[in-house]
């Protein structure tokens, strides 16, 4: 019973930790706008946390630059299971216009399994919400697999 309740609530209260891996700040701003009154992601339980230890969903934005690479990997590893990695915008998946630059060491798939991607440059808040909702569903599945 308790286990089922826990599984159910895994999807209802996903806390987000946001990593900026060299992003141009466009996606970051849109992610924050998801929490504004107009889009109000909190009604689905989303909450931005300040520490990866609290997070369920890690949102990575930006192409993985050489400078941020180690930090991203380290921070991702510090998130407790079950966790879902969301690539926000086009950059983490491909490098976007920065592709091939000497300072880029992407894409994110090289370092971890990206569960959900939200494409767009930048994605609209609605798309981000849809992506996060999908991530929450995956979170629930992962939670079920844990036992």
């Amino acid at each position: 019973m308790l286990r089922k309740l826990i599984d159910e609530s895994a999807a209802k209260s996903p806390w987000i930790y946001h990593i900026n891996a060299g992003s141009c700040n466009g996606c970051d701003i849109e992610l924050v706008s998801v929490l504004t009154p107009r889009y109000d992601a909190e009604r689905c339980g989303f909450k931005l946390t300040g520490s990866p230890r609290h997070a369920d969903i890690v949102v990575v934005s930006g192409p993985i630059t050489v400078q941020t690479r180690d930090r991203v990997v380290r921070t991702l590893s510090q998130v407790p299971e079950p966790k879902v990695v969301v690539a926000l915008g086009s950059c983490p998946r491909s490098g976007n216009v920065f592709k091939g630059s000497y300072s880029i060491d992407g894409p994110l798939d090289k370092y971890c399994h990206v569960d959900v991607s939200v494409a767009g440059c930048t994605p609209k808040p609605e798309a981000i919400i849809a992506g996060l909702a999908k991530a929450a569903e995956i979170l629930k599945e992962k939670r079920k697999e844990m036992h």
Partner: protein
Amino acid sequence: MEVKNPVPFLKDALKQLFEKPVTESFPAGDPPKAAPEYRGRIVYHPDLCINCGTCLRVCAPQAMTRTMEPVEGGDRVTFTFDMTSCTFCRLCSDFCSRKAIELTDDYMIVGTKHEDFLVSGTFIKMKPVKKPAPDAAAAKPAPAKPAAEGTPAASPAPEKK
């Protein structure tokens, strides 16, 4: 202490308590329509494409790939647009002389696998019936190229304004 006077905020907050929230109903209902001229997911019409390759040249993030495999009487050309690589600048669409690339207002580009983000189309480009001489074809573009590159660079610049 430079604390701002909270009274006006308090007034707003109390007023809003009894107002209808401004929140969109999105995750429950349908996603709202994007603004006019929104540049969203690419739609590719292979039947209009002539495989000129301009889109490939103007694409800054190299979001599209073209594969050509020879078939009888021509080439099977496949254009694949990777949405996770695209910046949605619409240059490809603007430069496409046949309007084979179109940016729709579908912004819901969310997926879990890489395939979810690929837009592709295939057509068969028939070879011209009359073949030019192979050596002439190789020699001709060489002198033409500087001119072709020089003129567009000089001329479109004033037009932009």
